[in-house]
């Protein structure tokens, strides 16, 4: 469908929302909107449900058409048989768009349900009304406080936008990103995507300021060529991470040619994503790993990294992973070695890069400052710093970690290079589980990508580095 961009804009950024068909005792949809900054209304005709809605001081009406003023978004949570009636009311009211939680349509495979969906689609297409879903969680807009999970945050700022074909993964990416200190500007759970499809959303996100980075979970697309061309435009403008689920390696189909028999769904998707310039990921944690590097590290195409570990064993382990991921771990200049030689504790330590630094910086935070000063001046280091952070003593003296993070932030600002925090089990991570979690959370909250393994950190950073080096080549 040629989606009316102005109406989609209204639906995704609504100043007024009508929730239709919400039910007690939880009133999930109305409760999700408790921090909504716009005008909120309810439509409910069931006399058993109305008192609970009125208790929340939310004005209730018996039809969408009765709601006063302009309506930008209708959240539809009625039983499926009622859905066409609500769509009719929304069309009459000329609302921005409808987000339909209601399910039980074409996804069931039942002929009646397919027919019912077609009725809704035809009505939307004929009137040019954008429909998000059906069978979806709908829209999250951070700034306005439109939510589909009450754990989603309301507030200013935005680091990324999310499109998800699965409600669960839409929530997973939203909440997982929040937990890692990222601001999700918007999430669109697209469901069956029968009126507005994934290409419409991708096209919308190209110029969307709330989505400086885009994450997607997709299983399939309605119009492959259109999606591919929109995705290419998007990836040329901002980093895009695509987690593709449900791929199959089964040989394509009975085919005359070798090529056709090898063109499995997974192989073609993989090639298509690479070709578009987007970053392919394979799981939720993989997606979050890459997002954290994209959001919390400056754009950087350099490959020369400085690796700072706390023990000899970990300095070897971190170097293995960074080299495997394609980074260089270069020697530093003689000038750098001369300065480092003046203060670095070389008994049980080393500063050749990788650094084995515990005895030098464990208690002397100013020594970390000196190391970072040297690295900032050394032209061999153009791809940033990965540093193993310790959790020991975080419960008694959290200021020490905070002081280290301040120095790392300063380095990042000065050099415009990534700083990646490594907090793997073993090594420097020790103490009570709660302390470890609290320390990692503090690092995320301070705006650093933090990884529970060297491998995940190195791979995530490598993929962002790869993206930026492509972008700079355009």
């Amino acid at each position, binding site marked *: 469908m040629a989606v009316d961009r102005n109406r989609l804009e209204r639906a995704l950024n609504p100043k007024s929302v009508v929730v239709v068909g919400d039910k007690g005792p939880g009133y999930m949809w109305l409760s999700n909107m408790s921090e909504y900054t716009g005008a909120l209304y309810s439509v409910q005709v069931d006399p058993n449900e109305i008192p609970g809605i009125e208790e929340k001081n939310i004005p209730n009406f018996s039809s969408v058409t009765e709601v006063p003023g302009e309506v930008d978004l209708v959240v539809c949570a009625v039983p499926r048989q009622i859905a066409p009636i609500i769509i009719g009311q929304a069309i009459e009211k000329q609302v921005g768009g409808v987000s339909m939680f209601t399910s039980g349509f074409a996804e069931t495979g039942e002929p009646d349900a397919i027919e019912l969906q077609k009725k809704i689609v035809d009505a939307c297409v004929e009137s040019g009304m954008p429909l998000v879903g059906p069978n979806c969680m709908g829209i999250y807009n951070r700034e306005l406080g439109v939510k589909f999970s009450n754990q989603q945050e309301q507030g200013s700022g935005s680091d990324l936008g999310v499109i998800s074909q699965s409600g669960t993964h839409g929530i997973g990416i939203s909440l997982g990103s929040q937990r890692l200190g990222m601001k999700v500007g918007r999430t669109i759970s697209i469901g069956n995507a029968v009126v507005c499809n994934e290409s419409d959303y991708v096209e919308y996100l190209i110029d969307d300021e709330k989505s400086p980075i885009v994450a997607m979970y997709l299983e399939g697309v309605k119009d492959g060529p259109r999606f591919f061309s929109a995705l290419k435009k998007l990836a040329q403008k901002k980093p895009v991470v695509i987690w593709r689920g449900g791929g199959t390696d089964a040989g394509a189909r009975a085919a005359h040619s070798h090529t056709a028999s090898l063109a499995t769904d997974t192989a073609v998707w993989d090639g298509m994503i*690479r070709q578009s310039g987007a970053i392919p990921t394979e799981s939720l944690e993989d997606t979050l790993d890459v997002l954290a590097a994209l959001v919390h590290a400056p754009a950087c195409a350099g490959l020369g990294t400085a690796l700072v570990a706390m023990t000899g064993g970990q300095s070897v382990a971190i170097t293995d992973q960074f080299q495997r991921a394609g980074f260089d771990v270069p020697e530093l200049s003689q000038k750098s070695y001369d300065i480092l030689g003046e203060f670095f504790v070389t008994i049980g330590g080393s500063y050749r890069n990788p650094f084995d630094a515990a005895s030098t910086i464990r208690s002397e935070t100013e020594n970390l400052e000196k190391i970072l000063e040297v690295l900032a001046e050394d032209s061999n280091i153009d791809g940033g710093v990965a540093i193993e952070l310790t959790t020991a003593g975080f419960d008694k003296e959290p200021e020490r970690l905070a002081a280290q993070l301040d120095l790392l932030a300063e380095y990042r600002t000065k050099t415009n290079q990534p700083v990646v925090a490594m907090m793997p089990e073993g090594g420097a991570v020790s103490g009570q589980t709660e302390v470890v979690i609290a320390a990692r959370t503090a690092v995320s909250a301070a705006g650093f990508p933090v990884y529970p393994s060297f491998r995940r950190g190195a791979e995530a950073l490598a993929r962002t580095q790869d993206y930026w080096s492509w972008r700079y080549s355009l």
Partner: protein
Amino acid sequence: MTSLTVTDTIITQARSEGRSLLSEVESKNLLVAEGISVTDAQLARDATEAVSFAESLGYPVVMKIISPDIAHKSDVGGVVVGLTDSDQVKSGYDEMMRKVSSVASTAKIDGVSIQSMAKPGIEVIIGATTDPQFGPVMMFGLGGVFVEVLKDVSFRVVPLEPRDAKQMVREIKALPILEGVRGQDGADLQALESLLLSVSELIERRPEIAELDLNPVFAYSDGAIAVDARIVLHSQDGV
């Protein structure tokens, strides 16, 4: 435009006979007309024609059975390589007819293709097919076990840009073999990239083509040439 005429004629001919699969000779003639580097092949209907084509191409030559009913030519004794004179071509022809008709007695035989024998190179496969979601896509991989067993191939959506061709060639795990191992000459990667790009252009130009295999392509340290080709057309109402 001559090239269009040749391609149009081949496609029209196949369709008028209700075929979607082009023979090797038809596929190669089409590719030659479209400017794609393949070994020339001519259809000989009897031994005398086979000898005369071999003489004009120069020896050694390769002879392959041409039959719409035989997909795997070598399985039925339908491929002979390294024929060096007219006697070998003549006896090779007779023997091939005998073998094929005993193994595949019901197959309709159009004749044999005679083609000059390319010097061996690193075998790669370049192909195109139609993906149900993304439309025409292209594939690149190393021939033989790399494709058959390891499925070490890369895909891209048509049309390819130079960067895509470059990545396709370099993305496969067997890249070191293309780059040359143990003192052997590597393959001319640029020639493979241009071959990928010209096939992509062909697929864009001729939407009638549903599938295409150049298998194998011989990659040399200087250049590359397809030595076998297969083209499948979309069924007529599909286009």
